[in-house]
C-alpha cells in the first residue's frame, strides 16, 4: 500500500450520545483509490463515523481527516474533497432536479457547472427528469439525485451510506456500475451496506464495526479466508450412511443431507466411504464460504 496521504484518516475517534457509546476508539486509514466497505449491524456506529467525516457530528475526541485536511480545523478543504450520499431519502420539494444540482454546485463555489451537471444527470438517467420537481420523483430517482448532488463538486472521496436500501434491482445494478466506474477513474469510495454480497463483490478492503469498535479490518480476500467452512448438500439413494459419518451428516429439511468440512480431502473420504457402504449420491451442491459467514462468525466471536 502506498505511503501517500490517506484519502480518509481516522484516529482514535470517540463519540458518546447520552447513554450510548457510538464510537469507542475507532482508527482507520483508507488509501486513495480504494473501494472500502464499512460493515456492521444497526447501531454499530457506521453512520456516526460517516457523520463525523462529513462534519455533521462532532467527535468527543480523536481526529479525522479527508485527503489530509482535518474535518474540523480545515473543514472547508475537507468538505470540498468529500461527497456524501446520505442514508435518508431527503430532497427539497421547492426545486426541480436541475435547480437542485445548480444550487448544490453553488454551495461549493462552482458557478458554471452545467457541463458537469449534464454529464452526471446523463450517467444517472436523470436527464429526462431535469425539469421535474423533486417531490414528483420516484424513490429510485430521488436516490439518484442524492448521488448526483454528492458529485457536483467532483470530490476525490465519495461516501455512500447504505445507498441501495430499498432500491430495486435495476437501479442497484446501474448505481454499482456507475460507482465502480468512478472508482476506476481514481475516486476513493467508502461504502456502508447491509447487503453483504454487494460488499463482497465491490470492496477491496472491509472493516467491520461492532458497538463502536473495529472488530475486523482486512482485504476482502483475507477476510473470506478466515473461515474455511465449506458445506456440501447431498441427496443419497439409501439411508444407511457409514457409522463414521453418522455424527457429521445432518438431515436437512428437504430430506437431503448436509455436511460441513474445511478441506476437500474430507469430501473425497466421505464419497469413498459412501460408495463402500453402497450408498449412491444422486445430487450434490457445494457452498463456498461467503462474507456473510465471516461476518456472522466475527460478530458472534467478538
Amino acid at each position: 500500500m502506498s505511503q501517500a496521504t490517506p484519502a480518509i484518516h481516522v484516529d482514535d475517534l470517540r463519540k458518546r450520545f447520552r447513554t450510548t457509546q457510538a464510537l469507542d476508539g475507532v482508527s482507520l486509514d483508507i488509501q486513495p483509490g480504494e473501494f472500502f466497505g464499512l460493515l456492521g449491524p444497526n447501531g454499530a456506529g457506521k453512520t456516526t463515523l460517516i457523520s463525523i467525516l462529513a462534519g455533521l457530528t462532532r467527535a468527543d475526541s480523536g481526529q479525522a481527516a479527508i485527503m489530509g485536511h482535518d474535518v474540523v480545523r480545515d473543514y472547508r478543504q475537507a468538505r470540498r474533497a468529500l461527497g456524501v450520499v446520505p442514508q435518508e431519502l431527503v430532497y427539497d420539494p421547492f426545486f426541480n432536479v436541475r435547480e437542485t444540482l445548480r444550487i448544490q454546485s453553488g454551495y461549493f463555489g462552482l458557478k458554471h457547472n452545467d457541463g458537469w451537471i449534464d454529464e452526471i444527470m446523463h450517467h444517472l438517467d436523470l436527464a429526462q427528469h431535469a425539469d421535474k420537481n423533486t417531490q414528483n420523483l420516484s424513490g429510485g430517482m430521488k436516490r439518484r439525485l442524492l448521488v448526483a448532488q454528492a458529485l457536483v463538486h467532483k470530490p476525490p472521496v465519495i461516501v455512500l451510506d447504505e445507498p441501495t436500501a430499498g432500491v430495486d434491482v435495476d437501479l442497484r445494478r446501474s448505481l454499482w456500475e456507475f460507482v465502480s466506474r468512478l472508482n476506476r477513474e481514481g475516486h476513493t469510495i467508502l461504502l456502508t451496506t447491509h447487503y453483504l454480497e454487494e460488499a463482497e463483490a465491490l470492496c477491496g478492503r472491509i472493516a467491520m464495526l461492532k458497538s463502536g469498535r473495529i472488530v475486523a479490518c482486512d482485504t476482502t480476500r483475507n477476510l473470506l479466508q478466515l473461515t474455511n467452512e465449506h458445506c456440501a448438500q447431498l441427496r443419497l439413494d439409501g439411508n444407511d450412511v457409514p457409522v463414521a459419518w453418522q455424527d457429521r451428516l445432518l438431515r436437512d429439511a428437504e430430506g437431503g443431507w448436509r455436511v460441513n468440512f474445511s478441506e476437500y480431502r474430507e469430501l473425497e473420504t466421505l464419497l469413498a466411504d459412501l460408495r463402500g457402504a453402497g450408498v449412491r449420491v444422486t445430487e450434490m451442491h457445494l457452498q463456498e464460504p461467503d462474507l456473510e459467514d465471516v461476518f456472522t462468525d466475527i460478530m458472534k466471536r467478538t
Partner: protein
Amino acid sequence: MSGFSALFYKELLRFWKVVVQTVVAPVVTALLYLLIFSHVLEAHIEVYPGVSYTSFLVPGLVMMSMLQNAFSNSSSSLIQSKMQGNIVFVLLPPLSYLEFFLAYLGAAILRGLIVGLGVWVVTLWYAPFQLPHPVWLLAYALLACAIMAAVGIVAGIWAEKYDQLAAFQNFLILPLTFLSGVFYSIHSLPPFWQAVSRVNPVFYLIDGFRYAFVGQSDTDPGLGLLVAGACFVAISALTLMLLKSGYKLRH
C-alpha cells in the same frame, strides 16, 4: 463568498416559488386589518392632531407585516429543512457559519421589505401619500426586518417540531407585535401598560417607523433607532454564537 450567494439565491427562490403564500397573502391580511379598523375607528379617534386614524394605522400595519414575514421566512425555511432532512444539503458543503447567517438573514430581510412595500402600495388607496422622513423609513425598515430575520434563524434552529415554532410565533412574536402600538398610541394606555410597552423593542420599531410617515411619534425616533440597533447587534451575536457552536445542527 460564492457559497453565500448560492444559499441566498436558494432562499429567495424558495419564497418566490410560493409568492402567493409568502407575499400576496400577508398583503391581503394587512389590507383587511386596515379596512376593518379604519372603518370602525376612523370617525372616533385622532391619535395625533391633524393625522387621520387611517394614516396613523398604515405605518403600523406595514411594519407589523414586515416583522412577521421576516421572522416567518428564516424560521420556516429552517424548520422545514430540518423536518424534511434536507438541511444536510447546506451542512455538507464548505459554507462558513457567517455565510449561513448572512444568506438566511438577507433573504428574510428582502421578503420583509417586499411584503412591506406591497402593503404600503395597496394602502395608498386609503391613506394619502406622505413621507416626510424617507431616510428614517429606510433605516427602521432594514433594522426591523434584520432583527426579526435573526430571531427567526434562532427560532428555526431551536425548534425541533412545527408546534414548537408555532408556540414561539403565537406566544412571543404575535403579542410583541400586537402590543406595540400598531393600532393605538401608547399614550392612550394606563401608566402600567405604557411602562410595559416601553420595554418592548417592537414598540420602538413601530413608533420610529411611523415617525417617518406622519412626522409625529410617542418617543424620540433617535432613541428608537439606538434601541433597534442594540437589539440587532445582540440578537446577531447570539445567532452567530449558536451557529458557530453548531447548536442543534451539528450534533
